[in-house]
């Protein structure tokens, strides 16, 4: 608990945790404010992705056959592996936060590195999938080739596929960068059971990115797979 050192030197007031900012009365209040702030941001992210999910909903309703045909051309295996990878990364993230909560510095660093690693695996598989799409001429625009009578509507599906997974991948990249910073801070011993808020906030963001994928996977990869 070496971080919880009293510091009253410059204040002439009661001692407080060095990480307690002056507009807060207690560490708990400060942490609550951080948590609420992060959740409000995630609320805006729900609406951000929500708009794209709505577009998907509408066009799937209008052009179901085209969506089913286009979705069936996507290989399930990389998507399924990626789903497992992301859920595992949420596990390692949660364990990382727990390690910080219990002042286990090296365990925190190890779990965070595992989270970053799994995030990079996810992105790597995505690169493979995107490259595969280019080869099969599934990229909307000049690259797109399809003999199907539904070609125009299939392009709509792939536009949504690339926009939604692309935006998601961008969020993953931001998450990996942010997590790298947090890992460095953890390595430097900045966190312990009295102050681990940045780890937890980064964790909330990371879990949110996982949540988006949990919805993306069935909607993009699993349209009318029976028969």
């Amino acid at each position: 608990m070496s971080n919880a050192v009293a510091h009253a030197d410059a204040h002439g007031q009661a001692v407080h945790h060095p990480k307690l900012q002056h507009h807060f009365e207690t560490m708990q209040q400060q942490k609550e404010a951080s948590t609420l702030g992060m959740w409000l941001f995630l609320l805006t992210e729900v609406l951000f992705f929500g708009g794209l999910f709505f577009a998907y909903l509408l066009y799937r309703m209008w052009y179901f056959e085209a969506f089913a045909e286009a979705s069936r051309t996507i290989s399930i295996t990389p998507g399924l592996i990626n789903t497992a990878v992301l859920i595992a990364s949420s596990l390692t993230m949660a364990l990382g936060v727990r390690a910080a909560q219990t002042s286990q510095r090296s365990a925190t660093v190890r779990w965070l590195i595992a989270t970053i690693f799994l995030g990079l695996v996810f992105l790597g598989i995505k690169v493979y999938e995107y490259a595969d799409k280019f080869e099969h001429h599934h990229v909307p625009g000049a690259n797109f080739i399809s003999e199907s009578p539904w070609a125009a509507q299939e392009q709509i599906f792939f536009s949504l596929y690339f926009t939604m997974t692309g935006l998601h991948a961008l969020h993953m990249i931001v998450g990996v960068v942010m997590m790298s910073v947090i890992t460095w801070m953890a390595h430097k011993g900045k966190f312990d059971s009295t102050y681990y808020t940045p780890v937890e906030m980064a964790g909330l963001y990371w879990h949110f990115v996982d949540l988006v994928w949990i919805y993306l996977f069935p909607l993009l990869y699993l349209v009318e797979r029976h028969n």
Partner: protein
Amino acid sequence: MSEHVSPKSVYYSIFGALMVLTTATVLAAYVNLGSFNAPVALAIATFKATLVVLFFMHVKYSSRLTKLIVLTSLFFLLILVGETMMDYATRGLQGLLPQLH
């Protein structure tokens, strides 16, 4: 700190449940449920999301205000989807607004 620390076993159990549910999602996709395929897939996804939010994101052990904000995001998402869909659903009525497709 009076923060709730979840035991590791809880995290591992939730992970296991999420893996099982992911498998269920894929298996269900290969069964012909007619028009219920999409609702079933979304229901499983929502259950998975609930587990992540409650346990991995710790909302089960968060303040009531935090829980309220989480529910509020769903509320506004429903307004976004619902109201926008109302626009499309009411197109072409009485020849007043053109149908879009």
